[in-house]
C-alpha cells in the first residue's frame, strides 16, 4: 500500500470529519497501516465549506497533509469550488449527486468521476445524518484502500449505541452502490 491521500469535502455538519476519523482508524487499528487525519478548524467546521483529510500508507507517513488527492469526496457545491482545485490527473472524484452536479467535461482529463445520490440514499434509510457513512461505504468500494470489514469494525466502534444497525445498512448501501459503478466501469 503506497501512500494514498483522501480528501473529504462538504459542508460543516455533514460528518466529513467523523468519516475521516473512521477511515483512518480502519487503516491504523484494523489494517495495521499508518494513518494521519487532519481537518479544517474554525467557523467553517460549523457550516460553510469544510474538509477532512486522511493519508494512509504501509510505510512511514512523513508529510501529514494531502498534496494531490488520490480520492476526493465532494458533498457540496461550495466544497467543489474551494477544494476542487488541486486535483491530479489520477484523482478519483466521488460526488453526492443529491447536492452537487458536476459533469465529466468539467473535471481534468484522466480523473474519474463517480456519482451517487449519497444524501438521497441516506434519507431512504430513514436518517439523512448517516450520509457520511453511506459515503464511507462508497469510498471503501471505489478506493480499495482499506477492507470493508475493517471499515465496518471502525464504524461500529465510533457510532452511538443503538444506531449500529442503521449505520451498517448505510455502509452497505454506499458500498454496494459504488461496487456496481465500479463493475460497470470495468
Amino acid at each position, binding site marked *: 500500500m503506497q501512500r494514498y491521500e483522501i480528501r473529504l469535502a462538504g459542508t460543516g455538519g455533514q460528518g466529513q470529519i467523523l468519516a475521516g*476519523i473512521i477511515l*483512518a*482508524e480502519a487503516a*491504523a*487499528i484494523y489494517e495495521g*497501516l*499508518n*494513518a*494521519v*487525519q*487532519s*481537518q479544517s*478548524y*474554525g467557523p467553517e467546521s460549523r457550516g460553510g465549506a469544510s474538509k477532512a483529510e486522511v493519508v494512509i500508507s504501509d510505510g512511514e*507517513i*512523513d*508529510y*501529514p*497533509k494531502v*498534496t494531490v488527492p488520490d480520492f476526493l469526496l465532494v458533498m457540496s457545491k461550495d466544497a467543489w469550488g474551494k477544494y476542487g482545485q488541486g486535483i491530479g490527473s489520477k484523482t478519483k472524484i466521488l460526488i453526492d449527486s443529491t447536492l452537487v452536479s458536476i459533469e465529466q467535461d468539467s473535471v481534468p482529463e484522466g480523473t474519474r468521476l463517480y456519482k451517487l445520490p449519497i444524501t438521497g440514499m441516506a434519507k431512504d434509510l430513514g436518517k439523512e445524518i448517516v450520509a457520511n457513512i453511506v459515503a464511507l461505504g462508497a469510498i471503501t468500494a471505489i478506493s480499495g484502500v482499506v477492507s470493508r470489514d475493517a471499515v465496518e469494525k471502525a464504524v461500529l466502534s465510533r457510532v452511538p449505541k443503538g444506531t449500529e444497525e442503521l449505520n451498517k445498512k448505510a455502509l452497505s448501501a454506499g458500498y454496494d452502490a459504488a461496487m456496481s459503478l465500479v463493475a460497470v466501469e470495468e
Partner: protein
Amino acid sequence: MKEPVVKLMQGNEACTEAALAAGCSFYAGYPITPSTEIAELMAERLPIYGGRFIQMEDEIASMAAVIGASLTGAKSLTATSGPGFSLKQENIGYASLTEVPVVVVNVQRVGPSTGMATSPAQGDVMQARWGTHGDHPIVVLAPSSVQETYEITIEAFNIAEELRVPVILLLDEVIGHMREKIVIPDKDSLKITNRKKTDARPEDFLPYKADEDGVPPMADFGTGYRTHVTGLFHDETGFPTGDPKKADALLRRLHEKLDKAKDRITLVEEIETEDADIVLFAYGSSARPALSALRQARELGIKVGLIKPITIWPFPEEVVDRVAKKAKTIIVPEMNLGQLIREVERASRGQADVIGLNRVDGELFKPEEILEKIKEVR
C-alpha cells in the same frame, strides 16, 4: 509484558495521556485554541485518577497554581497557546528561580497578539527561551509527531522532576490537532523519574542546599518541613540574600545543573547527515515536509540530510557544528521569519552556508517548496 495498544489520537490527546502516564496529578489552565483539548481531557481524566483539575481565572493564575501544586509534591501541567504563553512568562521565571518542576505546553498558533487562532506557527521559539526576564536556564522540547508527543511529554516530566526546572513542551497547531496512529507503550515499560526527596530531619532541612548534581532534594509542603520559597535571590535556607557571592553562586548553579545534564537532555535525531551536501535543520511540524523533501531529493540523487532537534533549548550546537564541517549548505525551514536559524548560524561558525526558508501565513510547508529550495542551492 502486555500487548501495546494501537490508537488513532490527536497530538493534544497524546500529550494528555502521556502526562497521566508520567504521574501528573494536577492541571490548572485557561483553555485556548489550539491547546483546548488538553484542558478538556484533563478535566475528564484527572478526577478518575484521583487528581485535580482547576480552570483558573486566567493564565497568570494557572501558572501560579501549577507551581503551588508542584511544591506540595504533585506533578503539574498547564497548557496554552501564544497569548496565554505571554501571560505565563512572569511565573515561568518564578518557577525557574525557585526550582519548581512544572511542565508548560504551548501549542503554537500564528501571532503576534490574537493572531490566527486555528493556524500553526513556530513564532514562539525565542519566547520559549527568553520570554521571562533575567538570565534564566530553561528546557524546551518540540516533538514532530503524535507518537513523539507522547514520548516527549513523559520526557518533559522526567527532566522537570530530575532537574527541578520548568520544561516547555512546544507543540504547534499541526501536531496538536492532527490525529495519527500511535502505539501506546505498556505502562510498566515506561521510565518515569520522580523528584529527589530529602532524607534530612525536618530540623536540619535546608530547602536550597544542592547535591553534587546541582539539584537540591525537595520536601513537600505540608509534611512538617519548613520550606521558604521566594522569587528573591536566596541562600540555602530559602530566605532572601543580597550577598553578591551567594547571588552569583545561585544563578551559576541553576545553569550548571542543566549543563551537567546537557548530553542526556539534548535530544536530536540525525537522518542521513553522514554523506549529505545539503542538510535540512527542521523541528516540530516543519520536520515532516522536510523529511519528505529529503526522500524526494535522495531519489533524484541529491545528497540531503536532516537534523531534527527534539530539544531546541539547550540548543544542540555540537551536532550542528559537526554536520556543518562536512555539509555545503544548511537550510532551515521555519514557520517564522527566522528564529532558530540564528542559533544554527552561530553553531555552524561559518563552516557552511545557512539559508532560511520561511512561512508565516498559517500554512505548513509543502514538501515541494523545500525540495525547490534544495534544487536552488545545489
